């Protein structure tokens, strides 16, 4: 299986992982904006989430509604086994590149 993960896709997957059981649209967006200090559009975020769902890296279910949302339900996301495998592949590739880097990548002088 092709397990290519884009940078933003990886970011979204990891963020969903950090949020645990509270991973729904707004929370994911907030978390990414807070950590990366950048503004992301809701359309881009959901497009990415949709693609990750198509790749079976994510699964989702509809959860409870709250008054502050106008009584509308939340959709929660969770990483699947395939998603975990893709993440770990990406990580090991990165680790390998780090360890084999010919120049010193350390920022300390």
């Amino acid at each position: 299986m092709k397990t290519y993960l884009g940078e933003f896709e990886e970011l979204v997957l990891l963020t969903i992982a950090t949020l645990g059981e509270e991973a729904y649209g707004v929370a994911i967006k907030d978390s990414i904006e807070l950590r990366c200090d950048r503004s992301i559009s809701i359309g881009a975020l959901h497009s990415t989430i949709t693609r990750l769902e198509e790749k079976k890296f994510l699964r989702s279910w509809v959860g409870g509604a709250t008054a502050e949302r106008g009584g509308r339900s939340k959709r929660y996301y969770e990483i699947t086994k395939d998603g975990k495998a893709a993440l770990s592949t990406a990580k090991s590739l990165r680790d390998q590149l780090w360890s084999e880097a010919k120049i010193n990548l350390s920022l300390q002088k």
Partner: protein
Amino acid sequence: MSNEKLPRVAERLFDWYCGHAKVDDLRGDMEEVFHRNVETVGYRKAKRIYWRQVLSLIFSYAIRKRKISSSNHPLSSTSTNPFDMLGNYFKVGYRNLMRHRYFTVLNIIGLAIGMSVSLLIITVFISAGNYDEFHVNKKKIYRVLTTTSEKKDYASAPAILGEKLKEYPAIKEVIQIDRSLYTEEPLPKLGIPVFGYYVDPTFLSTFTFPLAVGDAKTALSKPNSVILTESRAKEVFGDVDPMGKSISINHIPHEVTGIMKDYPLNTHFQFQAIAPYDVIKENQLDVSVNDQWSKFESHYVYVLLNEGQNPSKLQEHLDNIAADVYKSNPDFKATFELQPMKNFTPGPELYNDIGPEWSYASFVIAGGIAALILLPACFNYTNISIARALKRSKEIGLRKTLGGMRAQIFAQFIAETVIVTVISLIGALGLFFLIRGEFQAMMAYGGSLNMDLTLELSFWFLVFAVLVGFLAGFFPALHFSRLNPIDAMKNNMSSKLFSGVKIRKALVVFQFALCLFFILSMVIFNKQYRYAMSFDLGFNEENILDVDLYQVNPDIVKNEFSKLPFVQEVSFSSSTMGHGVPSTWSKLEGKTDSLETFFMFVDANFIGNMDLKLLAGKTFDNTDKRETSVIINETMMKRLAFAGPSEALGQYVRVDTLSLRIIGVIKDFHFWQLHAPPGSFFFRSNPDKYHLANLKVVTNDAQSAMIEIENTWKRISNGGVFTSHFLSDATAGAFDNYITMMKILGSLGVLAVSISCLGLLGMVVYTAESKTKEVGIRKVMGASRWSLAFLLSKNFLKLMLIASLFALPITLLLDKALTGMDHYRVAITFLDIFSGLLIMFALGIATMASQTWRTASINPAETLKYE
């Protein structure tokens, strides 16, 4: 939480764009962010952000994807339950069927009849597939097939191959089987034939045939032992314990060392006794056992592979053996092939089967016949459905206007058809139960089939019904789903509707051609049967009772039977007159040309008893105990180039080691069936060879005569079995194949005719229905009932005429083919064809008249008021 309102335009835009797609969570997300923003950055900015979010989502892949998955699903609807729509199809389908009960019933009856034959074939196929399931080792058992260079595939294989395979390590057991075990003389009771196999002792450990009495390990280890099946042992020995008793097989005494439990009939083996394979080797019973690679008529090689062994390795080994062995033989080449047990039945067509075989070829033929019955029934449904498209076009137009997709309309009509076919399945099952017994009895090995309605079978029947639904419903569904909603709503469909007319006409023609074919072939067979029954075979077959002699001395038999007042004459023969005779090679003494000559052993009285005509010479002399003379027939006389009967007398004929004097010439008679003219034949005379006593019985009370004859026989034979048959019955029995053929053709014909008539009825009803107004107007203008009825049916009459044109040449071809079967044929006349046509037209016209006459009789005031 703020109380500010969301920007309404943005909200509306988003809802409008998303349609049915499920975006509740996105709306919630945006609203949550909006309310938070109102508090942190103010209402105006929050509104701007909301707008930006709506736009970014509208142009995003996420919404596009959600829209696609919500709309393109044939089961989709705005409700959350995807099966609602399917439920709706069934509901609408049911209502439709109920509203048009007449057509529904027609369709269901037609399809039920059409499906019934297919159910039989499916049952046989499934049942054949379940053969040999009871063998524990089934997965590891293979047999070796032999393919000769003439491209003939045999189930048998050379004996020496079996010996050779015993050295191969991957094989756990090699089981050699020879099917030449046959005996008619198993004492103590005569007349019960026993047949079976000579097998290696490993037969019992490889195949699952448990013994009721005896030890499977040792039962076949004694040299002349035999194991009988439970039921056959009971028939031969009665209540006496058969263990240790002796029976004679091929003139060699065998000791019964085991009784096998009666095995399930659904196996490709068929036997009543097994004896050790070594018996053949020691007694040279079978030529193929001599180390020969080219003789394997009755010999089979089975192997049991070790656990986990790959058969392809063994196949390679077999290929090598074949290449090696046949290398030096220029006359004969063969290859061997390993066949796993699961492929035995149904399997490829093979020569020399060991028992019941269900070849794919026979299933293809049977399936073709079933299709000939099933397809017309499907055509009927298709025909009627498309013809009635006009009535349903409004519904379809409305569905399409309200957003019904093509796939949905298609699914709806398929669902409707499936309802019909599943209901038809119930009717078909009824017919299936009705004809099952007869069908099973007609089939060779039919008794070994399990034709009970098992769970597995029910499942396949249901699958079949659904498939038939797809088949019958495909074209109507395609037709309806293609309708243009505007045309459909406006009833402006004339162009579309009439596009199917040609196909419909072709279907009607095909159906009637098929019917005519069945009817005419019935007529032909019936005629040939009557002809054959009344054919003068050249000998007397009335009042002759053949009694099996078994081992009883003919002289005593003759003495005792002659005492009975109603027995006029007693003669002896080696076989039943007119029912297959053996042949040998003979030549005129001193000449070299051999002639294939058929023969019977008879005594002096036989010729008189059978009313055979001697052209010259005299009959045998009963006092002669040695074989010295022959009586030849006319054909043989001509082939031996004698100018006349008297010239042949006194000449000598050489047969094997004997030199026999021609003492008579007899007029030709039919010593075999009518498939060919009589060949060269002579009567020989040898008391040792007699099998039958031919009693001429003349009495008014046949029943008591039979009882007396039987009592006399019991006395002579010390209570032996009494087997007898009248010669005339035997002759009639020889024509059983005609009767079977007529039964098959007759029942198929009845089915085909009923289906065609139902189809015709449907079409006529539809035509009459759609023309009521026209009929009314014509009637007002002065048309008579007759002319109106003719008007409504004339198109169908035309189609039937065309069908006759197609069917006639096919039937003539069939007639030609039959000529190959029988030499003596009765020619079909114009009258036969005419009567066949008459039957079909009578049925067709009766069907049509029932409807057209009614329509034509309706009071025009009613029909014209109707709209």
